[in-house]
């Protein structure tokens, strides 16, 4: 019978019971390499035991014991850690306060820079200017003192002194005012975006769609 590895290890260590030792010795007679291995490892085990004794008294045992006891006493006598008191009031540590405050700050900042609330641009603006005549150039700027948008048209030909501006005569509004045509239009026929064109001596379009 071939011995198992566990049996073989316990045999080398001398931990096998006598009946199993006999079985192992019988196997070793049939397998000389086993006997040689057993002899080698037995000698090695004996050498190790002689070099490193199984029990060893620790040097200065009293010193180590007293040192450990002192550390235990120090831990027990140390003052309990004091809870650090936050300078934030208790109510400010509620879960909703911080995001609410952050939102308020953000809204304030956005209103100040005009992203919301419409306070960023207080005056009128000319967003875009186009001059069909390439010889005329429109320059737009905003005058803070006058709170006014100013468009300067460069390249316009001067008008002669005698040029008739055909000014509207304020003393005769019935002559110079445009003709206003008022008509009641049924809602069904007046969808958003629809336009009614009235053609007359002057250009005037009046709708009855509420605007503002």
């Amino acid at each position, binding site marked *: 019978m071939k011995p198992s590895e566990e049996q073989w290890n316990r045999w080398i260590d001398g931990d096998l019971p006598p009946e199993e030792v006999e079985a192992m010795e019988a196997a070793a007679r049939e397998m000389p390499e086993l006997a040689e291995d057993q002899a080698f490892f037995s000698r090695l085990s004996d050498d190790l035991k002689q070099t490193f004794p199984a029990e060893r008294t620790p040097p200065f045992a009293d010193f180590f014991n007293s040192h450990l006891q002192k550390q235990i006493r120090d831990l027990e006598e140390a003052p309990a850690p004091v809870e650090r008191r936050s300078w934030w009031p208790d109510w400010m540590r509620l879960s909703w306060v911080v995001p609410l405050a952050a939102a308020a700050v953000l809204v304030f900042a956005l209103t100040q820079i005009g992203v919301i609330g419409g306070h960023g*641009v207080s005056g009128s603006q000319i967003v875009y200017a186009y001059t069909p005549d390439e010889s005329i150039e429109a320059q737009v700027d905003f005058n803070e003192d006058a709170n006014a948008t100013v*468009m300067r048209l460069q390249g316009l030909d001067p008008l002669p002194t005698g040029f008739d501006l055909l000014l509207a005569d304020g003393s005769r509004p019935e002559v110079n005012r445009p003709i206003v045509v008022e008509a009641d239009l049924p809602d069904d026929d007046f969808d958003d975006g629809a336009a009614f064109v009235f053609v007359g001596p002057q250009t005037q379009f009046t709708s009855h769609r509420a605007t503002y």
Partner: protein
Amino acid sequence: MGAVRFIGVLLGTLFFTSALAEEAPKETEGSKRLWGALIFASKEAGDKRPGFADADAELAATLGKVFAEFHHFQVLGEDDEALFKTTHSWVAPSKQLCVKFDSKGRTKDGGIKLDLQLWNQGKAIVKTDAVFKKDSPVFIEGPEWAKGRLLYILKLKDGQRATPASDQG
């Protein structure tokens, strides 16, 4: 979980406050008018055009801040028109130099969007997209005329037909 709650409260507050801030004021139909005036600006008193009144003190002071090279401002003519949605009309104190406008509705902050065209002798010389705000006029520097320069003023006004900007006294 704390971060999710933080973002939720933050977004909710932002949405609520933004909606409040951007709520457009409601006004009745035709409550806004576009007022325009043709101004003659001159440097010397002797260059003033006879028969035309000086601009009132407030308007003259405002014009003086922008066109500092001129010292006298006379109102040659003025006109105003009510603003209606999808309506185009004219502000024509002069039939040679007038403004056509198309109302494009309101901005969220109370302004009025207008497409403007300045016409000179039957031709559109400039086309603009503009946003008008209350108490903030638009000044257009026009051509030289006589011994001065023509200016065009546009301004948003409330209510009924505007009172004259000239000082007849």
